[in-house]
C-alpha cells in the first residue's frame, strides 16, 4: 500500500480529511503508525532528518484514541522544538541539534491533530505534522437513527 492509498483508507471515508492530509507527504517523508504494546499502550516515533525541515513521518496514525508515548529525535544540525496536542495542555519539547526526547499525549479521536515546531526559524518552513486518530464515537454517544449515507 502506498502513502496515498493508506491516506484514502484513514478515518473512514472522510474525503475532506483525506484531501487535507494528502498534501502532507509532499513535505514529510512517509506515513507512520503507532504500535500497541502488550500492555495496551500506544507508542510512536517521529524524527527531523538532516536539512529537510520536515517531520518523518509527517503523519503518525493512532489506531484509536487514548494515551500515546511519543519519541522525538532531532537528526538535524539545527535546533528545533515540538508543540504537540494533548488534552490538558499543549506539550512542549525543546529539541537541540542531535537530541532525542519523549512526550506523553492524550487524544480523543477520531480526528486529525496538527503538531509543529513553533520557534522563529521554523514557522512556515514545513515542520508541520499530523497525528491521525482512527476509530469512531462511542456507541452511547451516537445519534439514535438508522445508518445514514456518507460521501
Amino acid at each position: 500500500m502506498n502513502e496515498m492509498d493508506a491516506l484514502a483508507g484513514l478515518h473512514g471515508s472522510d474525503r475532506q480529511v483525506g484531501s487535507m492530509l494528502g498534501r502532507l507527504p509532499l513535505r514529510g517523508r512517509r506515513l507512520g503508525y503507532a504500535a500497541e504494546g502488550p500492555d495496551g499502550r500506544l507508542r510512536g516515533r517521529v524524527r527531523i532528518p538532516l536539512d529537510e525541515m520536515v517531520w518523518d513521518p509527517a503523519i503518525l496514525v493512532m489506531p484509536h484514541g487514548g494515551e500515546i508515548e511519543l519519541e522525538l529525535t532531532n537528526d538535524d544540525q539545527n535546533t528545533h522544538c515540538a508543540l504537540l496536542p494533548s488534552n490538558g495542555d499543549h506539550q512542549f519539547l525543546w529539541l537541540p541539534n542531535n537530541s532525542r526526547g519523549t512526550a506523553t499525549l492524550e487524544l480523543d479521536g477520531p480526528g486529525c491533530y496538527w503538531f509543529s515546531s513553533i520557534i522563529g526559524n521554523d514557522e512556515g518552513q514545513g515542520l508541520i505534522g499530523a497525528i491521525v486518530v482512527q476509530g469512531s464515537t462511542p456507541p452511547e454517544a451516537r445519534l439514535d437513527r438508522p445508518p445514514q449515507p456518507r460521501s
Partner: protein
Amino acid sequence: MTDSYVDAGHAVDQASLSGVVGSAPPVVRDVTYDRIREARSEPQNWLTYYGAYDGQRYSPLDHVNTENVRRLAPAWVFQAGASGLYAGPSTYSFEAAPLVVDGVMYVSGWDGWVWALDGRTGQELWRYKHAIPSDTQLCCGNVNRGVAVAKGKVFVVTLNAHVLALDAETGECVWDKTYGDVQAGESGTVAPLVVKDLVIVGSSGGEFGVRGHLDAFDVDTGRHVWRTYTVPRPGEPGSETWPADGEAWARGGGNLWVTGTFDPELNLMYWGTGNPAPDFDGSVREGDNLYTDSVIAVDPDNGEIRWHYQYNPHDLWDYDSNMEHILFELDGRKLLGHFNKNGYFFVLDRTNGELVRVTPFVDRITWGEIDADGTVTAKVFPKDEGEPVRFWPGPGGAKEWTHAAYSPRTQLFYVPVQDVGAEITLRHREFKEGIPYWGAGVVVDSKDMAGSVSAFDPATGKEVWRWRNDVPMCASVLATGGDLVFAGEPTGEFNAFDARTGKLLWQFQTGSGHHSSPTTYSIDGRQYIAVPVGWGSWVEGFLPGMFGAPHGDALFVFALPEE
C-alpha cells in the same frame, strides 16, 4: 536512548513556560444548587451563565451608575493569543460569559481553552486546553459560550462534543464524557447548565442534518442520566409533523446550542431549539417539523418535554429559536420573554406555553407575518429550484444568539437588534452524513443594514427607546442596578447606556468587534464589568459587511478608579 544523542528530556505543559500560577483558591467547593438557585442574593458573584436561572442578565450591583460611569476605565486585560496550528483559525470568536466566584473568574475560549483568572488583577491562575481535532465539523465557527461551576468543579463542553468536569482549584480533568458524534457533524459549543445534581448540555450541528438532543450528566461522577431528542422518532408525540415515509426526522436538526433558563418553583427548564434541516429546502420535510424552532419546557429530573411552543412552523428561513427565554413576572403572572430571529418579541405564560403577546421588534420583516393570536403566515420563502428570493431578517436573524437583558428596576427588556436581509436560492441536495445540509445558496447583505439597542415594555410590546447604529448589534446586553445597559459594537466600542432613556453615557474602543456576553461582579466593594472581545464566528451570516474586521482575543475588565 543511545549515548550519541543529547537527552532532550520529556515534554512539558506549555503553561509551565508562562507566568501561570497553577492553582486557584477553593472558592467553588461550596457552590451548591441552593446557592445557584439564589444567585442574585450574592451580587458580588456571577454564578451561572445568565447570572441567575431566570436569564435576565441583570445584576443588582449599582456602584457603577449613571452618575459616575463616565469615569469607568480598564482595570486589566487578559489576552490568550495562539500557538501553532489549531482548528477553525478563521472562524474563532471569543463568545463566553465569564463566571466569577468570590474573586476568581472562570472563562472559556475557542478551541478548547478554559482559564481561571484572578478577578482583581487578571493574573492567570490555571489553564486547561482540550486538544481539538482540526477536522471537527464546526457548525458555525470555533466558539464556546461559557462554563458552569458547582461542587468544586468547572464544567465545559468541547468542540468535539465532550463534556468535561475540571477541578476548579487546579484545572485538571475530573471526568470526561462524549455526548455527540463528530463524524455525523455534531459538535459542542453551549455553556452547560447545572440544575440540582445534574449538568445539562445541548448539541450543536444543525447545519449538518443531525438530530438535536439535550443530555444530563451526574455532577459528581459524569454518569449519563438522560437524553431527550428534539425531533421525535416515528410514532412518538410530534412525529405526525414530519413526513410519514423516509428519514427526514433522522436528519431533522433542532439542536440546542444556547443555554436554557430554569424556574425552580415550576421545576421546568426552558430551552430553545434550532432550525430544521435542511435549512431552506422544505420539500423534503413537509409538516410543522416539531420540535424545531420552538421553546420546550423540560423536566430536569427526567428530560420529559412538558409543553412546547413553536415559533416558526416549517421554517424556511433558518430562524433558529435557541435564543434565551427570560423569566419575569407581570401582574402576578409567571411569564417568559423571547426575541426570535424572525423579528418578533414573544411573551408566553411559562406555566403552560400560552401566547400572551407577540409584537415586532425590528423595522424590516418581509418573510411573512405573525398575527396577535400567533397565526404565522409565510409570504416570501425559497420555493423554486434556482430562483433567488430576498427577505428580511436574513438567516442571521433580527437578533442572533447574543442575549437580551431585563431589568426588574425599569421593567424593560433591552435587546441587540440586527436589521439585515439576505438573498436565498433554493438548491436541492441529497443528504450525506457529515456534509453541510442547507439546501440553498446564501448571500447575506453587506450593505443597506442597520442595528440598535432597543428597549421594550413587555406589558405592551412597544418600543420605549432606541439607540441606533450603522451596523447590526451582535453582542449580548447586560443590565445593572446602576440603571445602566452595557453593549458592545461590531466595530469594537463597548458602550454604557442610560437604562431609562437610551442615552450613550460612556464608550471605550477595545480594538475588535464584540460577540460575547459581558458580566459584572465585585471584590471588596469595587464593581467590575468584564467583556470578552474577539470578532468572528458566523460573521458571513449576521454581518458580512464586517467580515474583514480585526480578530481579537482579549478579555477586558473595567472598573472605576480606586480612591
